[in-house]
């Protein structure tokens, strides 16, 4: 695009300086900072992605770490040093078993509808459970499912990834094994109606793309099943 002309107009600072800048910005923020914001805050022509690569290496093995959280970056203390931080430890409200299971189902099956969560757990999901997870900002609304009734779906958030130290939803523990065991397919009940099966197909496809594609994707977009192809390829 216009990059080349711009590069000639604005001299980007040397990479060492860019690394310092990324370091300062990430240190200053309690929340993960996305690449677009980093680039916007750094001088013209700076390349936050490259600078982060250098910075991440620099902090390997140190008391704090440069970690990736979804599409964003943050500095977090090394988790082996958590014992030093009793003072900073925040008592989190104990989540109910229902909430924990619902969270896990959303994380592993996302995007997941309430009906799917209920089918997996075998009980209805109380309003409060979903509310609690929404309030924690660990889940949010995903795209509506393009099935009759256009039910809302839930997906996990960047805060969820941040809280559990995950780079992306793909890094969920045991995800691959669960998938290869077929436990993430939502298998239709025998004799179930045709449209239900269609929905299920779509859904299992959807999962793979979901983590990325739903980040910043438009929530009610029509092309619910479009981006999965690319992701399915990644997977192979």
């Amino acid at each position: 695009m216009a990059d080349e002309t711009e590069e000639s107009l604005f001299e980007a600072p040397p990479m060492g300086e860019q690394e310092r800048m990324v370091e300062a910005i990430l240190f200053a923020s309690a929340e993960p900072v996305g690449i677009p914001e980093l680039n916007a805050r750094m001088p013209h022509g700076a390349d936050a992605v490259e600078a982060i690569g250098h910075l991440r290496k620099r902090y390997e093995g140190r008391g704090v770490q440069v970690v990736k959280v979804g599409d964003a970056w943050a500095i977090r203390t090394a988790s082996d040093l958590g014992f030093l931080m009793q003072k900073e430890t925040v008592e989190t409200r104990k989540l109910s078993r229902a909430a924990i299971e619902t969270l896990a189902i959303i994380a592993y099956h996302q995007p997941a509808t309430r009906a799917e969560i209920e089918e997996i757990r075998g009980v209805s999901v109380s309003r409060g459970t979903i509310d609690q997870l929404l309030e924690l900002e660990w889940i949010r609304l995903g795209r509506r499912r393009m099935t009759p009734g256009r039910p809302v779906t839930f997906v996990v958030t960047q805060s969820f990834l941040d809280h559990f130290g995950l780079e992306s939803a793909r890094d969920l523990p045991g995800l691959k094994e669960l998938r290869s065991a077929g436990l993430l397919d939502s298998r239709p009940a025998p004799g179930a109606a045709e449209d239900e099966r269609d929905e299920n197909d779509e859904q299992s496809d959807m999962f793979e793309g979901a983590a990325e594609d739903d980040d910043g994707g438009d929530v009610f977009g029509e092309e619910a099943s479009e981006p999965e192809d690319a992701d399915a390829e990644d997977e192979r």
Partner: protein
Amino acid sequence: MTPSDETSGGATVVSVHERLASEALIVDVDGFEGPLDLLLTMSRTQKVDLRKISVLHLAEQYLAFINQARDLRIELAADYLVMAAWLAFLKSRLLLPPDPADEGPSGEELAAHLAFQLERLSAMREAAAKLMARDQKGRDFFARGIPEDVTRVRRVTYTATLLDLMQGYARIRTRDEFRPFTMDRRYVLTMEEALDRMRHLIGFAGEWADLTSFLPEGWETDPARRRSATAATFAASLELAKAGKVEIRQSDPFAPIQMRRRPQSDG
């Protein structure tokens, strides 16, 4: 579809250990999150891989549990009873030879699906446990304790479009055209002018004469000028009458207005 006979028959074969477990389940029935949860717990007593579970056995266990609960007059939620009915149906499917006329799914298919549901629920519970066992922010690792807030500097820029500019200009020029009409003297005879003129003329008006005859030369034809001149002249004549210089008369409404110099003798 009462499974009581078969159930009681099955109940005799379950071990003491299992019966104790079942009783413990009954006491704790409120602790279960629905029939699937209960079934999953029961399946553990089989001590086999969930994939190799005997669904028939599980169905019998569940139905026995429901019967015991009924005997103990424990209130069971409707979904436990629905599950019992379904499992009784499943059990009959599994035990009876398949009916070729029946179009529905076979007992094996239904059993396989139930086994899948149990395995999936179990898997999700393990996943949930693994998730919660991960290092967590605020417990095992920490974010910056003194985040430096980004200070927001607000800068105001002003914009205008070319259209704004052109409309602005058009507005000004339009205003010019519609500017309140400054009196164009060509079409206006002021009262002062008329008065001036009348003072000179009145000395020659000993007889009654029409007001119109006092209009200045050239103002009688153009309607705008005539209107202005007539009004000014009339006003001037009133002014002169007030000063006692002229007399005015009008025979009828809308009849011509006439005036003459006031006779000197009367003054």
